[in-house]
């Protein structure tokens, strides 16, 4: 029996692995976004398609550049699709006919300052897409609030010219989103009952003014529910967020319909659905325990309603998600699952409690 050389780094258990992989998860999320996106392309025509393409390309380019500068291999991390997903979500939250450089600046900002600075996937503390959208909203308010009436779809080539800023956008086409309209009217003292909502402001099917992600609420919700059944996301955050948005809205509307929009308007308009199913449920920046996710979702919903009703900006989802991202470490610290055999405080349970439970 010769003594064998000591193996200091053997292969450890388990020797079986799940078939799931990061790129598979990201692919499922991208697929869930496809229906809403293509419906939006159909609504707003080619410029939105080019803007979507440019945003994704610049997001991926930003990630690739940072990875190469950090001397880490580029292709595997790009192939896992997280940069594409970030770019896609950002594109969904931009005005459809925004100029090309909005997409480029947003995409680069999202992946470099939003994610790679903190160390790549899994390390960022704020949702990259939303950070980029807020940065753009704050720095280029005009381009970021320039909405277009749907169903006026120039062909592919003209669309490219519009996105590149060559042909100016006729004024007749521009209009305000429902939330924006409500905010300005309230500011002017006209209460909600007498305000004249533009024809396209609210449309059940979703053919209305707003960014790509704001239009087809139904399709986005369908994509989100599909993700829940594919077990990519859990129901806790979306349900908590939509409830926390609808309940105060309903109470407010019941108390003073002139002052507060009703629950369905809040849910169907703006980025509520996109925020609840795709942005707030971003793995990296949301808590990973069930109760934590419920608290996180409720926080997002409530803050969205507060900012939409009282805040300075018409759309509050992005800010709400970012503020709750900032609170996620605190939530993770306070809300922990009960360890088997221990109380919530972490102390071992007594034998009697063990027998009874």
């Amino acid at each position, binding site marked *: 029996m010769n003594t064998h050389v*000591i193996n*200091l*780094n053997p292969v*450890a258990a388990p020797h079986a692995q799940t078939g799931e992989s990061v790129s598979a998860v990201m692919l499922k999320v991208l697929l869930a976004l496809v229906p809403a996106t293509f419906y939006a392309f159909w609504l707003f025509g080619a410029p939105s398609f080019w803007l979507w393409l440019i945003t994704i390309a610049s997001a991926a380019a930003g990630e690739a550049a940072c990875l190469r500068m950090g001397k880490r291999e580029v292709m595997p991390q790009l192939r896992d699709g997280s940069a594409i997903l970030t770019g896609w979500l950002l594109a969904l939250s931009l005005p459809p006919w925004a100029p090309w450089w909005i997409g480029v600046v947003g995409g680069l900002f999202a992946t470099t300052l939003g994610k790679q600075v903190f160390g790549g996937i899994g390390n960022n503390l704020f949702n990259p897409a939303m950070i980029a959208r807020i940065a753009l909203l704050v720095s280029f308010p005009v381009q970021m609030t320039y909405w277009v009436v749907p169903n006026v779809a120039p062909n592919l080539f003209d669309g490219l010219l519009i996105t590149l800023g060559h042909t100016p956008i006729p004024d007749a086409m521009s209009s305000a989103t429902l939330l924006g309209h409500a905010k300005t009217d309230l500011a002017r003292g006209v209460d909600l009952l007498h305000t004249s909502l533009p024809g396209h402001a609210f449309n059940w099917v979703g053919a209305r003014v707003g960014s790509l992600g704001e239009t087809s609420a139904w399709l986005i919700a369908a994509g989100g529910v599909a993700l829940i059944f594919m077990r990519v996301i859990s129901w806790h955050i979306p349900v908590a967020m939509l409830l926390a948005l609808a309940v105060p809205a309903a109470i407010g509307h019941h108390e003073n319909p002139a002052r507060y929009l009703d629950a369905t308007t809040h849910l169907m308009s703006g980025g509520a659905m996109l925020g609840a199913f795709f942005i707030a449920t971003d793995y990296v920046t949301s808590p990973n325990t069930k109760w934590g996710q419920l608290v996180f979702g409720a926080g997002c919903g409530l803050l969205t309603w507060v900012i939409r009703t009282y805040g300075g900006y018409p759309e509050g989802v992005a800010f709400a998600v970012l503020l709750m991202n900032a609170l996620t470490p605190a939530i993770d610290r306070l809300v922990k699952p009960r360890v088997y055999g221990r109380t919530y405080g972490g102390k071992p349970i007594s034998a009697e409690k063990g027998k009874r439970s």
Partner: protein
Amino acid sequence: MLMPIVSVMFLGLFLGVILGYAAKVFAVEGDALVGEIQGMMPGTNCGQCSFPGCAGAAVAIVKGEAAPDCCPGGGKALAEAIAAKLGVSLDLSALADAGPKAATVDETICIGCARCYKVCPTDAIMGAAKQIHSVLQDACTACGNCTEQCPTGAIGMQPIPVTLDNWNWPKPVLA
């Protein structure tokens, strides 16, 4: 012209009185920290940390001149305890991980001169005159006093061999 000087002087006086009174109410006796840290040290005064004994090292650590992991005898356990006491975060991976060492006697050249166990701070060496000596690995802090005494160089520092008891899964290197 006089008013500003007088008012500021009175204000200072008034606040001084309050602080003087408060200082007496909240008096705290000397810094018990040095004593606590010295209590944690092995207390063998072996000098491997280049300070005069454990008391010297404790004072240096509290003053911040020495890092919490400057005591090789105490190893990681002591370093972590001191870092926790000081509320300082400590990167332990930097601790030279050549693995703990212990003195071992080479039976072939030990002449039993009994000089080594006289200087061992923890009585880790067993032996009698003209008998072959041996080291209790468990009590040896690898301070090296014995190696200087040994005329034939029979006693030396060897890393503690890896056995099933102290073998541990390595930390996987992550992407």
